[in-house]
């Protein structure tokens, strides 16, 4: 079952032909923007000479900073009268970046979003409650337009007000929802507190999750709480928003829509491509956007291409759940380590769960990764053997995952700072000079 069978199952070589055509068109468009005009001159890029999608490597990267420096109109390629909407990213530092959309851009995005939802099993018979902020944030309107294009009964519930969310679900028989994972935890707590059973008292059949970092273990926990499947969604404002990549019903990676984007995975240090299967930074080029085409955008999100074909029959590449951000990555003993990889190991060990801290220290002139774990009364039985066993289990698990042997430090209960679920628990205390 496909939304657009011919596109979604296009053979690799044909997909490349389509990408090459669209890339040529995109480059012609991009040169109309003051920013790219300047870049092309600076790097002596002749857009007409780039004939194939694989030649994209000859183009320079576009960074978040480039977008920030060229706010508001530096990347706009057309007359403002063609533009029908803008979205901004939440800028925590400096100018928030802006992306303008023409009617074509909105239609193209809505279609990608509908295709994504369809791949995850959403149908026009579903009642879809979008539990997420509307406005400048793309998660609201992105899902909204996708649902409408698909033909669902959409409920633009917005974020928060848990009591009202549940009332809407009950009154209109909501079958599918979209929310951030941490909100689903809160929603479930509320349902339990009201003496309800999420599995019996609601008609939910599936959930779409994304827009914040989480681990596979968290996804599994959410699925167990509600007794239904949760599908990973990936998107970013610079590339429209949601609908960039989405999990199909196989739940084995997110199909990234290659008719709309060229996807590269690079080593964030060397900027060279990494082989399929290896983790690196996701780099994307828009292929179907008129107002603000963006070339080789460094997303700073870390993921990998999942090798092989998906059982669903879609030929578009699959990326893995985002493993972290390049900003969070640290290097210890010559290995690139992403905190989420370490977190994933620790979360699987019930004694550790959320009670840990990753510290980087210089010990005898060596860079060491230290994992501090709180010894808690609820599992401490007074025997050293168990503590030693736990220490070995953590050492082994982390070494297998990131190839660095950590130092495990058991600490007294209450020694670690109380952290908010989302905070990255890494302290770099090394003297790196």
């Amino acid at each position, binding site marked *: 079952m496909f939304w657009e069978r011919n596109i979604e199952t296009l053979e690799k070589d044909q997909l490349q032909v389509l990408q090459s055509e669209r890339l040529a068109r995109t480059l012609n468009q991009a040169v109309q923007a003051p920013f790219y005009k300047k870049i092309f001159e600076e790097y002596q890029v002749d857009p007409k000479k780039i004939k194939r999608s694989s030649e994209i490597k000859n183009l320079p990267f576009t960074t978040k900073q480039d977008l920030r420096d060229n706010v508001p109109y530096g990347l706009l390629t057309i007359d403002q009268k063609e533009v029908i909407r803008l979205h901004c990213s939440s800028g925590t530092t400096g100018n928030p970046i802006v992306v303008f959309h023409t009617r074509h851009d909105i239609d193209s995005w809505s279609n990608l979003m509908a295709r994504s939802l369809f791949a995850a099993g959403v149908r026009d018979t579903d009642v879809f409650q979008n539990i997420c902020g509307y406005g400048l944030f793309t998660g609201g309107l992105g899902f909204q337009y996708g649902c409408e294009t698909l033909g669902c009964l959409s409920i633009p519930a917005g974020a928060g007000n848990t009591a009202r969310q549940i009332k809407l679900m009950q009154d209109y028989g909501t079958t599918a929802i979209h929310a951030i994972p941490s909100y689903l935890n809160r929603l479930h707590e509320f349902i339990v507190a009201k003496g309800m059973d999420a599995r019996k008292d609601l008609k939910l059949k599936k959930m779409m999750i994304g827009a914040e970092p989480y681990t596979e273990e968290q996804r599994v926990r959410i699925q167990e709480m509600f007794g239904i499947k949760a599908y990973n969604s990936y998107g970013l404002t610079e590339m429209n928003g949601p609908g960039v990549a989405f999990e199909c019903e196989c739940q084995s990676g997110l199909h990234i829509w290659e008719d709309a984007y060229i996807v590269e995975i690079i080593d964030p240090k060397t900027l060279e491509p990494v082989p399929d299967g290896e983790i690196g930074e996701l780099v994307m080029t828009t292929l179907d956007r008129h107002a603000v085409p963006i070339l080789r955008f460094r997303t700073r999100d870390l993921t990998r291409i999942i090798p092989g074909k998906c059982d669903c029959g879609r030929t578009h590449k699959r990326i893995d759940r985002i493993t972290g951000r390049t900003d969070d990555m640290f290097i210890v003993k010559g290995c690139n380590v992403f905190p989420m990889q370490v977190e994933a190991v620790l979360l699987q060990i019930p004694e550790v769960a959320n009670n840990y801290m990753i510290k980087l220290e210089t010990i005898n002139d060596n860079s060491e990764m230290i994992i501090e774990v709180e*010894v808690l*009364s609820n599992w401490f039985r*007074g*025997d050293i053997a168990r*503590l030693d066993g736990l220490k070995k289990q953590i050492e082994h698990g982390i070494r297998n995952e990131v190839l660095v042997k950590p130092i495990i*430090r*058991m600490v*007294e209960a*209450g*020694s670690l700072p109380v952290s908010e679920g989302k905070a990255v628990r890494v302290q770099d205390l090394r003297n790196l000079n």
Partner: protein
Amino acid sequence: MAYQVSIFLENKIGHLRKITTLLAENQINIRTMNLTHTSNDWGVLNLIVDFPDKAHQVLNSQNFSVALREVIALEMDDHPGGLDNLLGKVEAAGVNFTNAYSRILKAGGEAFLILDSADTEQAREKLKKLGLAPLDDETVYGK
């Protein structure tokens, strides 16, 4: 059945004292103690006190990682060969233990040995077959 109070402890100045102070303030008498430190920066403090339940509750309320752990207390004589004689019997019973420490009750008279075994139940059965009964709780706790 005697219980030892086991507390997880970081090997840092003042950490042990925090525990003894807390117990002193709560009028809990420490009968004997033993501190096992691994090669790491932490270890486990084992205490025999007069009121183990109360000690457990007091320490727990102050956020210490504490556990009540069943141990075997065996009577022995406080004279040359007393420990050797007892260990001979323990060996004959085929009992393995992971930790041991003792207390003298009366100089030149009685003492007792605390044995911490991974399987206390089984150890107690084995000792019983050789006629070695654990010391009564009143004697261990000093009540």
